[in-house]
């Protein structure tokens, strides 16, 4: 849709020059991509099982019951136990487990120590277990996946709505602008966190419903920026020219004005991600977020606060939050600096 023009090229080069932002961007993108296939790294299902000459890849296939591997039960195989059994039997069967052989829901309970248990290499709980005996690494990883996708999805929806409405307000002006302005003012006076809490406690939403609830109150912020920018652009000659040639409303907004106001969206987006992650974590912390037992950072944070002695819970989740939010903020800073028009002007 938009070919990279030399200006944008310059901005990207500039972004690449800001090292900490660039590396944060690479690292975070990598993390997000990896989190999509987290099942390969953090999972109670084996990556690969070789049993009587046959190979199984349980990660993404249907469930294998114990009877498939000569065991006496008809529910899903415990691959960790299977691995041990095979190596003890020594009949050429083997199991390849992921680096963290736990999923985010199962509770490890050895009958002696009550969770939370401290980090242990022997049990492959590299960051220990939470108060329910679930692996902290697994909770963190899957919690991250949910949080970041929640943030990105919410952001995309919010910005889609906000940008369209903002542009329309700016471009059409007049009564539409006036009415929308007042409408948004009233809507944004609603204390959004409280409303979300009330809604959540009544309807107990799923992931997507939760995203929608957040979008309901999150789309207003960007409208103001887009409205002002569009007002400014509208008066420019190229818009006049497009109009003179008979371009319609949507064409002008999408093809002519939007590319020229993109800078606002790009610079604000990373901070939007930060805000959304924080909102989800805060709501989960208060117990008003996603349904338990969904893995969530807020829940871990709450556990960490209640169990100060179990330092590994609080420490891991706080580090994770700080790390991710810092990275996103670095990216945001880099983008802002790269897109800063002052950089290319002589009035510095």
């Amino acid at each position, binding site marked *: 849709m938009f070919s990279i023009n030399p200006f944008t090229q310059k901005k990207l080069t500039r972004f690449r020059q800001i090292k900490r932002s660039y590396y944060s961007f690479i690292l975070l993108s990598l993390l997000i991509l990896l989190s999509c296939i987290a099942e390969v790294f953090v999972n109670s299902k084996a990556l690969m099982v070789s049993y009587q000459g046959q190979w199984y890849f349980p990660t993404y296939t249907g469930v294998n019951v114990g009877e498939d591997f000569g065991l006496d039960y008809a529910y899903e195989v415990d691959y960790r136990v299977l691995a041990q059994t095979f190596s003890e039997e020594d009949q050429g069967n083997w199991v390849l487990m992921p680096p963290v052989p736990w999923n985010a829901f199962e*509770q490890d309970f050895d009958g002696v120590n009550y969770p939370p248990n401290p980090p242990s290499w022997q049990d492959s709980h590299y960051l220990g277990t939470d108060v329910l005996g679930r692996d902290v690494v697994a909770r963190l990883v899957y919690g991250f996946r949910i949080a970041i996708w929640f943030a990105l999805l919410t952001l995309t929806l919010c910005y889609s709505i906000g940008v369209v409405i903002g542009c329309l307000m700016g471009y059409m002006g007049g009564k539409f602008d006036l009415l929308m302005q007042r409408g948004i003012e009233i809507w944004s006076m609603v204390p959004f966190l409280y409303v979300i809490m009330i809604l959540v406690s009544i309807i107990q939403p799923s992931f997507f419903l939760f995203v929608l609830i957040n979008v309901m109150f999150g789309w207003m912020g960007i409208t103001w920026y887009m409205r002002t920018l569009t007002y400014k652009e509208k008066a420019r000659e190229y818009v006049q020219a497009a109009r003179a040639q008979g371009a319609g409303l949507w064409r002008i907004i999408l093809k002519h004005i939007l590319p020229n106001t993109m800078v606002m969206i790009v610079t604000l987006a990373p901070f939007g991600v930060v805000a959304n992650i924080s909102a989800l974590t805060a709501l989960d912390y208060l117990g008003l977020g996603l349904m338990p037992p969904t893995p969530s950072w807020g829940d871990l944070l709450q556990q960490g606060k209640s169990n100060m002695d179990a330092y590994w819970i609080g420490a891991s989740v706080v580090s994770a939050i700080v790390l991710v939010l810092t990275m996103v903020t670095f990216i945001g800073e880099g983008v802002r600096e790269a897109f800063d028009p002052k950089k290319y002007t002589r009035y510095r």
Partner: protein
Amino acid sequence: MKTMTFLRASLKTGLGALLLSSLAQAAALPTNLNWTSGPDAPLFADKNAKQGGVYNLRLSTFPLTFRTIGPDSNGSFRPFLLDGQPGLLQMHPNTREYLPSLATEWAFDDDQKTVYFKLDKTARWSDGADISTADFEFLFEYMRSDNAKAPWYKDYYTNSITGITVYDEDTFALHSADRLPQDDLLARLGATPRPKHFYPNGLPKDFVKRFNWKAEPVTGPYVLGKVKKGKSIEFVKVKDWWGYNNPYYQNRYNVDRVRLKIIRDQDVAMKHFEKGSIDAFSMILPGVWHNQGKGPLYDKGFIEKSWLFNDTPQGATGVWLNLENPLMQDANVRKGIAYSINVDKMIETALFGDYVHLQSFGSGKGIYDHPNMKAKPFDPKLAAEYFSKAGYDTLGRDGIRVNAQGEPLVLVMNYSWKAHSARTAVLREEAKKAGLDLQLNLVEGATGFKAALEKKHQAVFQGMGSGMKPAYWQYFHSANAKPQTNNFTNYQDPEMDKLIDAYDSEFNVEKKAELSHQIQEKIMACDCFIPTYSVPYTRLAHWRYVRLPDTLGVGLSTALADESGFEYGLFWLDDGMKKETLKAKKSGQSFPAVNRVEKHGAESL
């Protein structure tokens, strides 16, 4: 003029006649009554208890009112205002016999509906006024008043307790609507009076608002003192409390003041406790007891842990399946579910092994409990068999069973407390082994209970309280198979109705127990109630200067040191020990760690 005097005179005589007639009626106390003052039961308070001291506790929210009736009054604060106050009788917390309290003597009428009471002449309200029959008469006016906005009480004091007959200052009779066995009759009629002199003109129209922050005088040892709204509440001991004339009240309610600090957050409250600004901390929840109730303060003996396995009746806690739901109508599905709920693992992991697997519909009710009823164990193989019989015979890609139409086997279970997430999460993971997708749906707090009353659930994970005897009518009678009742399973069965009606009207204890057993058998055969656990204990962490009796508590203790309301008041504060403890804390000295576990009645076993 003449007519006026005549009128007045006739009015006077009329009034006199009225008075006379009511007196004449009042004088008709039956003469053949068999007055009793209860058995000669053993005392249960500790004779070594010391008097005095200020006792600090934590309250998680400031109460919404100081009224004991009307909107918002039935909260967690009411046990401090009302529930522990002496009524006509008290129950012996070990033998469960009725003992004198406000009434020194009582007698049963042959109609099995009426009990006569004689009041303790020394009984006084906390403001010094005499407690008389007038206060019991007023009780009815109070409870029935529309201004109190308490329809339940109005109904109860109209249709269950039907009225009072006054004989003199200290003698009266209360009437029950139904014929009841003697113990049940005393349980129903053992009322607590309300102070007539506090409401000289009855309950005003704006009672709910005007008396929202005015506490009534009480019959008990503690009266509301200084209140800082939103911050703290203090209770002060009544001077020369009348109750100490009664031997069963001696050596109880020992502290002079009880201070309740409002600390919302449990973790913050814990820090206050560890600093010593709170003296005792209830630790019934396993996570708190095992994970938070430890550390140097405990190892050095500054804070002691006391755990009493009491003898309180346990209500029905379990998974209630809604029989109205199409899936739940299949008996094989219900059986399968019963075999796929892994209660033992839940208790072992999420509850640190502290709770007890409930085997039937409630427990701790003596002969009314079924002696050899057993809950279905966790058995994924058997569960799978039953699910297969119900048509769910193939395993889907995700390990969940599906039927021929490709519908997965899903059970949505509501629960209403976030702290239960840990427990239900275990059940969910274990149910997968039977191919059951047990989906958890947290509907918090009061909303959750309301949702259960609406009967829109498929299954609900919930516990109910219990009286001394099992109650079945509210849970399993077809009359209640409709919204807004406690029949959470929507159970309907004419045979069960007959049994329950027979149970409710049976006077003979053995026969009643036999009926109770039959009902429990039917409940368990239906598999619509899957029992989970009971909590047959209470426990407490407390600074070492909060002293408890050697037995820790009594059979019916739900709290060891009255930490959630005035109960038995058996603990005391040792001032000398407090000084010693504070000194030791400063100097780094330590005491032996104390971790006491007692089982009530263990000596007699």
